[in-house]
């Protein structure tokens, strides 16, 4: 560790600490306002509060189990199954490309009384409210994420190791249990943490479909106006739960072995294999929200109406979107793309600095850093929005810098902070895959540290960074919860405009835009994969 590198680290980490910890400190201070620690005692005394805590925990644990039960078999069933397998994976992961706010709206169209589901399944006109409803929405929304991580883990397993196990006399099942699953464990743990955190911090699903049940996020929202100290205490408790989950699982050490570096040959797909039918059974429900979006986009005015699901389909919404008449939709789409692009770029640079430059730092420092970078995951969007507002009201972090309230910079900043964990994880996953000797080889060949970074390390982890950046971009593009607190009429992002259009019964063009967006995102991703495979 040279001195210059140490300085780099200090600067990068201080920046991270400023942007991430300052809001957290503000939140803690707020929670102690008035009664000090007794605020927490008072919170515990209320039956409602305890019910909210246990409700959130129960929901999140079951969500993790549910997504695991769907995603792990699905990824194993479709792994190396040729084109059909890849198609099913894409189908299951496509909802990942849907901006979050559209997802919620789609679930409404999908599951609500008179929605798509009740028309597809005759006689099923249930009341989609309460705990099972929220759990279903959670599992369907988060399974794609879980699947993506497990899939990446599967790709990373050296086929030579599986072949070695087979030659040692292990059958398929034994191979799965003794080699594949243990090697997948880090990915499964990471996916579980991510889903747990997302579920703890999820606001819209409990809010829309929760019925009378209590959850921490909705409780924070409800007490926000009248009892701000209580809301802050609840936010701190939520963050603590999430952080302890992070701490509990983040211990599994990443063991890496050099791989043979050779590609596996894909097995040919056999259409009639029961394996793929089973996979389809798991994948199709995950794609239902996307299907709903498509249907709604083709319906007049973006309303399902009373007639059959297949009646009155037309491209009128797309035409209306193209003419750009009246609504703020098109300008807001442009705005959001712009914000999301800048935010993703900043998060990318920041994450690369943290992970790549910090690689040779002492172990404790590295652990501290990645823990720090994960904190935003533990903070729900509402809380992050609120704390950014208080922090940047008149000053920046550490009492320096300009007040950014009301500017688009603050919006971008919120997106950066929210999506930093994703980028850090992507960079760390890439680096874990990269053998130390590869950048070392570059050094012995005469490349300095910067050249090695730009020509060897970054290109080597590019696939990981790329997929991280795509997810960050999509997340930032559709970010709703923090945006609604921070945005002003002049900086209003597309997610809010879409939601407002939906509330006003003008969902048609918005749904059309959503379909186009998902289409472009999917195409772009496939194009990128195709390009990197061709290399």
């Amino acid at each position, binding site marked *: 560790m040279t001195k210059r590198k140490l300085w780099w680290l200090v600067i990068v980490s201080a920046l991270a600490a400023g942007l991430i910890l300052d809001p957290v400190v503000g939140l803690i201070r707020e929670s102690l306002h008035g009664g000090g620690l007794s605020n927490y005692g008072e919170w515990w005394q209320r039956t409602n509060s305890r019910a909210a805590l246990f409700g959130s925990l129960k929901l999140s644990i079951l969500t993790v189990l549910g997504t695991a039960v769907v995603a792990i078999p699905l990824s194993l069933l479709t792994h190396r199954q040729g084109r059909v397998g890849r198609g099913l994976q894409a189908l299951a992961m496509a909802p990942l490309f849907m901006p979050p706010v559209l997802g919620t709206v789609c679930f409404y169209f999908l599951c609500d009384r008179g929605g798509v589901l009740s028309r597809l399944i005759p006689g099923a006109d249930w009341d989609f409210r309460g705990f099972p409803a929220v759990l279903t929405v959670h599992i369907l929304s988060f399974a794609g994420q879980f699947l993506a991580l497990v899939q990446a883990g599967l790709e990373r397993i050296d086929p030579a190791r599986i072949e070695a196990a087979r030659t040692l006399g292990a059958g398929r099942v034994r191979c799965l249990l003794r080699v594949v699953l243990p090697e997948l464990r880090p990915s499964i743990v990471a996916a579980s943490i991510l889903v747990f955190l997302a579920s703890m911090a999820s606001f819209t699903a409990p809010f829309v479909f929760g019925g009378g049940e209590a959850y921490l996020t909705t409780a924070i929202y409800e007490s926000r106006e009248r009892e701000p100290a209580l809301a802050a205490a609840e936010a701190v408790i939520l963050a603590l739960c999430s952080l302890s989950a992070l701490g509990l699982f983040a211990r599994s050490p990443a063991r890496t072995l050099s791989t043979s570096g050779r590609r596996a040959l894909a097995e040919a797909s056999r259409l009639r294999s029961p394996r793929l039918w089973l996979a389809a059974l798991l994948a199709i429900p995950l794609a239902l929200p996307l299907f709903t979006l498509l249907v709604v986009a083709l319906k007049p005015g973006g309303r399902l109406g009373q007639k059959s699901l297949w009646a009155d389909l037309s491209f009128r919404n797309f035409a209306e979107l193209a003419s750009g008449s009246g609504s703020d939709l098109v300008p807001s789409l442009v705005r959001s793309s712009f914000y999301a692009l800048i935010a993703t770029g900043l998060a990318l640079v920041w994450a690369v600095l943290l992970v790549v430059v910090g690689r040779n730092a002492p172990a404790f420092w590295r652990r501290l850093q990645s823990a720090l970078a994960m904190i935003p995951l533990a903070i729900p969007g509402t809380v992050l929005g609120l704390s950014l507002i208080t922090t940047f009201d008149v000053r920046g972090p550490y009492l320096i810098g300009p007040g950014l309230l009301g500017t688009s910079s603050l919006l971008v900043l919120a997106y950066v902070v929210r999506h930093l964990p994703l980028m850090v994880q992507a960079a760390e996953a890439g680096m874990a895959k990269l053998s130390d000797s590869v950048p*070392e080889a570059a050094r012995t*060949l005469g490349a300095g540290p910067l050249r090695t970074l730009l020509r*060897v390390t970054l290109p080597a982890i590019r696939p990981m960074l790329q997929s991280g950046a795509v997810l960050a971009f999509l997340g930032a593009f559709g970010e709703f919860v923090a945006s609604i607190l921070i945005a002003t009429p002049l900086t209003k992002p597309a997610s809010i405009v879409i939601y407002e259009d939906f509330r006003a019964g003008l969902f048609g063009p918005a749904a059309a835009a959503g379909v186009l967006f998902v289409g472009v995102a999917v195409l772009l991703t496939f194009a990128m994969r195709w390009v990197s495979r061709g290399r």
Partner: protein
Amino acid sequence: MTLEVAEISRRFREGGGVLGVSLHASAGDLVVLVGPSGCGKTTLLRLIAGLVPPDSGRIRLAGQDVTHLPPERRHLGFVFQNYALFAHLDVFGNVSFGLKARHWARDRIVAKVAEALTLVGLGGAERRLPADLSGGEQQRVALARAIVTEPRVLLLDEPFSNLDPSLRRTLRAHLKSIQRTVGIPMVHVTHDREEALALATRVVVMDRGNVVQEGPPREVFESPGSAFVARFLGAANLLRAKGRPPHWAGHPLRVEPGSSPDGQSLFSLPPEALRLSASGPWTGRVIDVHYLGADTEVEIQVGEERVRARWPSQDCVLGLEPDATLHFDIDTARLVLLRDQDLPV
């Protein structure tokens, strides 16, 4: 051009490392490092390359102290044990990497890369990707990548371990001719005795971070200085003798051993130092006969002991086959008393 390593040390907190190793290699020297797995061979090479900072000691390259120079300014070639190819670059990209880092002109790079690839038998493979190459091909790309920049010293960490014998011989010959023409010092790690014998001008045996013996290959292999070296290299016989004068398998060895308290001593004996002789004091039973081309190796059971003898094939009389009985003598001039005789064998 010389490489001098003086008392270099690097101790890892988790255990292991290199503890005060000195090494000298001048132009034309090919030092072969051998030693059991985990003894610090790779670490020593990494110290020389500047990939690990030393705790103490100095490294000089061509008279220049490079101990604190970053790896990219040492101008040496390193072939990694796991190849460390750049997976995102094709073969040309990999081999030309060092030349580009040194800002060579494009047309010179193309020519030089083609030359290096031809040298390792991969001419025309410029556009292939590492992931599509066999293990041996990857290794040869790694070798080409290391030598193409004409380094001041070449460090090779088991570079031929994945190649078939004929390819191995070809590359060995190439390596030797490269070394003769370029005249740079090379440090080469291998587990292959034949390779060490064929290549080395000097063999350095390491154990647990220390150099335990060094010298010309024949000397080290056939007259190991310690039971550890003898056992590790496995080329010489180990004779455990008892009493004064020392007796082995019932007969005196007729040497003057350094006295040992309990009258136990351990000798090493090269297989050639056994002589077929009808009047020899020892009688043994042939266990196995290995035809090695010019030589034939014979395993002989002598009472409780087992020894290996090696004789020119044409001297091996007919009837030398398993279960035959033979008489032999020992060339006592070639017996070496081992220092660490109390080591269990």
